[in-house]
């Protein structure tokens, strides 16, 4: 007994944690396996019976996980592109061309001290980033990425989007109030005024589109835009897309409307007192917002997953190959093709010069074979599978808009709060109403 106690005393805190956790985890795993073995079939039946719920849970999980690489990618894009615009080099130390720097940023934020300032309301202070983060992330759920690839599809998709996007202002206001800091308070109030004002032109600018499409289901809206790129709603709603983009920029608190975190005026606005991962959540939410706003612009006005030209049916490859029918041949293919390709691709290197050693040639051949296989599989998927092509077009278009946001950040100064309000109420609101009336009149004229 004393031997065990002495050993226990010698362990550091992580060691003690591991020694406690490992048996617990083992027991849980064994229990899980036992439950699956004993009650596997009934559980499967229950899941199959509630497929909608299962689908929802899986979609939410995937969407939550998707935000992390998206935010990392956009942060890296912003660092690198603005650096080029500023005639700097930008990140170039961590990873190839500095591409892992945003991951390191994420880890840094994770490891920082997470403090609550004296006088802050700890509960509201803690929950504010969660509200902001969830409000922006959950909007991803209704965005259709490709044919058949969406989180949820329901009739009020667009309304759901605006409702959740408006919810983020609650989080910003919570952060501004709970921080017990005057700069935060100003930032929170600015956020409230700004987001509430721009919500109106943002919503009104798409009403014309809703009239045209006859639905608020984002999936159907994208399907309506299939065909040539002239079928995209941007050509029927040019004013609408302009208003939508401007109002969405303000909604996402991006330059030139980033008054809520104007560093030269109110330090960091609502995020002044935040540190560690709570700040990280704000940071993530901001960049995820950029992605979402771009994705929604593409979904509504730029044809979503549709290619700018219709893909001829004759070029479509049938992928109805049943892997099972290949039998052992499939195994041989999986095992041999990479090997053979590697050797084939490395031969020219080996034969070209006696200075290239065999292992060097093999490495080059391996890389080339992988590239070749990847290209072939991708081309096959692109031609044969709808959703591969859809995701490609959707992401391509979305990142064009993400680039536009970054470009604006690098170029434009910030507007003033009264100019911001004037612009929303005196220009954007009448313009969006005009857009709505003209669209409605045009629909009546065309239909009668």
């Amino acid at each position: 007994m004393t031997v065990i106690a002495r050993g226990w005393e010698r362990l550091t805190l992580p060691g003690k944690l591991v020694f406690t956790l490992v048996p617990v985890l083992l027991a849980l795993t064994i229990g899980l396996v036992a439950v699956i073995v004993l009650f596997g079939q009934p559980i499967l039946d229950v899941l199959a019976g509630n497929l909608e719920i299962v689908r929802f849970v899986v979609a939410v999980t995937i969407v939550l996980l998707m935000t992390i690489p998206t935010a990392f990618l956009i942060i890296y894009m912003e660092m690198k592109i603005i650096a080029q615009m500023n005639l700097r080099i930008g990140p170039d130390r961590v990873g190839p061309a500095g591409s892992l720097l945003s991951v390191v940023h994420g880890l840094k934020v994770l490891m920082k001290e997470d403090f609550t300032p004296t006088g802050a309301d700890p509960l509201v202070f803690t929950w504010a980033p969660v509200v902001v983060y969830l409000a922006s992330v959950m909007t991803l759920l209704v965005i259709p990425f490709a044919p058949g690839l969406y989180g949820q599809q329901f009739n009020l998709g667009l309304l759901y989007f605006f409702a959740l996007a408006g919810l983020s202002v609650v989080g910003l206001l919570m952060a501004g109030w709970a921080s017990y800091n005057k700069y935060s308070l100003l930032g929170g109030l600015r956020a409230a005024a700004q987001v509430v004002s721009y919500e109106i032109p943002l919503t009104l600018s798409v009403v014309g589109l809703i009239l045209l499409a006859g639905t608020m289901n984002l999936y159907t809206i994208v399907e309506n835009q299939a065909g040539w790129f002239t079928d995209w709603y941007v050509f029927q709603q040019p004013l609408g897309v302009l208003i939508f983009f401007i109002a969405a920029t303000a909604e996402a608190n991006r330059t030139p409307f980033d008054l809520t975190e104007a560093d030269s005026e109110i330090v960091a606005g609502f995020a002044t007192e935040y540190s560690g991962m709570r700040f990280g959540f704000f940071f993530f939410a901001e960049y995820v917002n950029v992605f979402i706003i771009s994705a929604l612009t593409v979904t509504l006005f730029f044809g979503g997953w549709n290619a700018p030209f219709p893909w001829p049916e004759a070029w479509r490859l049938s992928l109805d190959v049943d892997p099972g029918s290949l039998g052992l041949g499939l195994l041989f293919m999986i095992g041999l093709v990479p090997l053979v390709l590697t050797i084939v691709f490395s031969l020219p290197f080996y034969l070209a010069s006696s200075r290239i050693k065999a292992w060097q040639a093999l490495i080059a051949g391996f890389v080339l074979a992988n590239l070749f296989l990847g290209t072939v599989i991708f081309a096959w998927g692109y031609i044969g599978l709808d959703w591969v092509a859809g995701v490609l077009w959707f992401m391509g278009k979305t990142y064009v808009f993400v680039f536009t946001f970054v470009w604006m950040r690098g170029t434009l100064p910030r507007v003033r709060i009264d100019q911001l309000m004037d612009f929303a109420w005196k220009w954007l609101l009448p313009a969006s109403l005009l857009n709505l009336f003209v669209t409605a009149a045009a629909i009546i004229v065309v239909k009668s």
Partner: protein
Amino acid sequence: MTTTTDRPSLDDPRVQLDRDLGVFEPIPPYPTRTEREAEFYTLRDGEMLINMGPQHPSTHGVLRVVLKLDGEKVVDLDPVLGYLHRGVEKLCENADYHQAICYLDPLEYVSSLFCEWPGVMAFEKLMDVQVPRRAEYIRVLSGELNRIASHSLFLGWMALDLGGLTPILWSFIERDEIVDMLSALTGQRMLFNYFRIGGVNGDLNHEFLSRLGDWMSHATEQIESGQALLNENEIFVRRMRGLGTMDSATALRMVMTGPNLRATGVPFDVRRAHPYSVYPELDFDIPTRSEGDCLARYLLRMDEVKQSLRIIDQCLHEMPDGPVMAKLPRLLRPRPGRAYAGVEGPRGQYAAYVVSDGTDQPFRMRIHDPSFIHLQSVGVMVPDHLIADAMAVMASLDPIMGGVDK
């Protein structure tokens, strides 16, 4: 010095508060000393005090301004100075005349030459030293280069305070080129310490001249392309136009000088009004503007850059041969007396007033810095504007806190 309020001060160690004071309660930094302070720190309904600085991203150093806000509107403000006070005047009085010059440099860390210049000129007047003409030309040449460097940094700061990220890095290109060539000439990038009593520290060298020639060949296009990003930017122009307007009478009453005064329409330039050095022989214009707003102050500085380029061109063409230092005794002991000298710097009139008691150290040294003078006009320009405008107005005055706090 009377205490006009009974409120306790957090800074007073004798005061024991029976409860913690919150950040939303107005507490003066010390028992109020004047009527003005007492009025300022008494809040009406809906007003809030906010501390901007000394560690704020856009106060250009360690300026602290207490803003009295009503929502987003600035009702009143109270600049609190002294966070960068080093006692430069006293340091100068404890050094001999040569050593005093190097204390003048860090006053104005963006355009150091213009702080050395009045000091050196005042010492020369005190000692009746005749500066060689070549040295005067070199002073004018390096000074105008420094003026361009300072103005291009102003452009970047101005944009940065309005939220633009790029212009500051673009304007650093030309500032860097100029600073590099000045470091080839003087040996330092920032605090040049180049002017000496009776001349300058070294003659023009090959590296300086080749860098200058390279730069002059593309300077005009480079400066204009840097400005185009702001001049043609609708957001920038709309924010700056009509902001912080100052009429010429108020500007004169506030003792403003330099670009800030000329932007109100008063064509006062020390280089023409009280000519010094070789400026009477050079051909250049005094740009003025009548609007007196932030945009005018910005555009006027950009016009000045063009005039500086003209002056540099003339200096290079008319540079005479000869020595760059006057013959002076090693130990300088001027007669008892007093001397004053002022120069036109990128921010206004820099001046030095020296009293000598016949020893080898100045008996009294008074330094006049335009940043300090201009900062008082913030109190006239900013109230009734928004918080964002307060930053823009302060940036458009282009204060350097090293000079303000001395």
